[in-house]
């Protein structure tokens, strides 16, 4: 039981980060129908920039409290990421708004390659370690342990998501966004500046991505120029799982994907243990004897398979994701 709860807690933590990133994908997709492949790289840039600022401040003469240092790093990262997303939209996506659907997808891939290699030039090829500014203290939660860092990540992600829902549902900008998502032409006729709305979707997504980048880095303690790729892929998977274009779907999908992955990694080894099978070859029997009956067909390195497998299953039975509406095909 406590393994279950423990994996649930780990999954929830990672899942809330996925959800934050997934929101960026889903907002852009909901409004202009583009898979912003470069979004994962924005998360990576957020992590890298905040790390640089934090290291610079740690090296300063007057010692600052660590909360101030982290906040400063976060603010700079958010600003940089917003600027990058704004520029990216303006340069690579806006001119292609009326082009065939796959053209902006290719520029998005191009942007992703550009950002990755710029990061490689600036921060180098090595894994960068994050200084232990926050010493995680574990707390006992119903027999499983949850660190204060994990709690902070979950709570902060929850607050940010609540804030986003408020912006989208209750403000004028949010109303404009929803209108543009429904029909850009008509929204334009109603006096909405569509370009501003689309930029806003990119910029808000980038801000969330920057926070997610810092979270991932503090959680794992490392950052790397390539980290955005897999994270972006998972987050995009989460967005599709929930139903792309749907905010609640992205949140649900993110948390679910995190939990599925953690549980999958925790249990797949035991479930696929083959030592109980009657007909084993000699070499397998020897392996079983040597490892006290623990030879799994699939180890925890199949974690990613698990996530994608669940995604495929869900999409077969619900072709538009868990909370998605039926969308018609765009040419």
């Amino acid at each position, binding site marked *: 039981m406590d393994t279950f709860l423990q994996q649930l807690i780990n999954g929830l933590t990672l899942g809330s980060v996925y959800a934050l990133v997934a929101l960026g994908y889903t907002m852009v997709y909901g409004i202009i129908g583009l898979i912003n492949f470069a979004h994962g790289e924005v998360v990576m840039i957020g992590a890298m920039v905040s790390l640089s600022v934090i290291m610079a401040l740690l090296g300063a003469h007057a010692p600052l409290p660590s909360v101030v240092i982290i906040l400063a790093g976060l603010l700079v990262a958010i600003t940089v990421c917003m600027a990058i997303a704004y520029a990216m939209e303006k340069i690579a996506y806006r001119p292609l708004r009326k*082009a065939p659907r796959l053209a902006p997808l290719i*520029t998005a891939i191009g942007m992703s390659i550009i950002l990755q*290699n710029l990061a490689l030039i600036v921060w180098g090829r090595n894994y960068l370690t994050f200084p232990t500014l926050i010493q995680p203290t574990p707390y006992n939660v119903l027999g499983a342990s949850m660190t204060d860092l994990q709690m902070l990540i979950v709570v902060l992600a929850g607050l940010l998501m609540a804030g986003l829902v408020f912006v989208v549902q209750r403000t004028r900008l949010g109303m404009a966004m929803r209108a543009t998502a429904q029909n850009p032409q008509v929204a334009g006729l109603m006096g909405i500046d569509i370009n501003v709305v689309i930029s806003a979707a990119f910029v808000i997504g980038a801000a969330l991505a920057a926070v997610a980048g810092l979270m991932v880095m503090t959680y794992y303690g490392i950052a790397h120029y390539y980290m955005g790729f897999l994270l972006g892929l998972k987050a995009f998977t989460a967005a599709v799982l929930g139903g792309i274009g749907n905010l609640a779907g992205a949140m649900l999908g993110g948390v679910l994907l995190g939990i599925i992955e953690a549980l999958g990694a925790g249990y797949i080894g035991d479930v696929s243990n083959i030592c109980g099978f009657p007909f084993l070859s000699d070499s397998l029997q020897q392996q079983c004897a040597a490892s006290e009956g623990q030879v799994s067909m699939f180890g925890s390195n199949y974690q990613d398979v698990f996530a994608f497998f669940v995604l495929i299953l869900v999409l077969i039975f619900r072709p538009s994701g868990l909370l998605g509406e039926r969308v018609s095909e765009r040419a």
Partner: protein
Amino acid sequence: MTAHGRGKSVPPKVWAGVVLVALALALLPFVAALAGQAWVRILNFAMIYIMLALGLNIVVGFAGLLDLGYIAFYAVGAYMYALLASPHFGIHLPFWVILPLGAGLACIFGILLGAPTLKLRGDYLAIVTLGFGEIIRIFLNNLNTPVNVTNGPQGVNLIDPFHVAGFSFARAQSILGVPFSGPQKYYYVLLLLTIGVIVINIRLQNSRLGRAWEAIREDEVAAKAMGINTRNVKLLAFAMGASFGGIAGGIFSATQEFVSPESFGLFESIIVLAMVVLGGMGNIPGVILGAILLTLLPEVLRSTMEPLQNALFGRVLLDAETVRLLVFGIALVAIMLYRPAGLWPSAVRKRELEVPKVVAE
């Protein structure tokens, strides 16, 4: 494309052109060898990529189904060859047996992927195919315990090259007094196969099936209403695209004599997709152009970036590999911005894009 009718005789000018092109293609490996054998290998790679891109073009360009996991079929073909012609299992089958087998297995995988995803549309299909590609790669990476099937991340090496009764395509050899290197011999095999694939693709496009694919791409509901069995036709697109990928994979295995899961990541899938879209989706000459361009561009950049930096700044400021990818990314964005329909779009697509302008006037 093949506009001239069956009864008409081909004008001599066309014949002259065909002969000239054939001569140029035949001499190309010797011209490339002047710059080093590495360039002959790059030419061979370009042809493997042409086959891959044409295979993906069936799925994406003809049938309009966005596939982000296409490289999985390439991997299936490559591993099929690697496992059946290497000391790993001690099996050494000849290539003309394995290549069709690889194509067949890839075809089965194509149907396996296609069957459950028929209902999905657009970007949902994209993410499922992407997941499928990753699943295949992760399996290849991890199927070394408890039973060693794929040899895990180390990959399979010492794969047999193509050989016919003692005549090996990998060894350098002099034929009729002309010295041929290994890659040069492979070049001619690949050239024949590539021409075969191109011809099949052209015939497919103009066939009943090709027109059915086009109809589905333009409007699936209307196509169904016209009596096209959309399920079977879509499955055929997946299966045929996949088998071309499988063949290309087998050839890749044989020319490299080594495969590892690293060669089959998502990035490869994306690059092949970029070849199709950038060249001109659905247009066979365009796709060939895209494949050649995106294979050659990184290599040209690799060999020019360091001398260029030396000339400009007097020293090498940035690692050539990084700059190469950076420029590659910039080129992708720039080409798409200036030619949104691709470098060489099909006539239909070009017309579609021009419609709004005419209306605006």
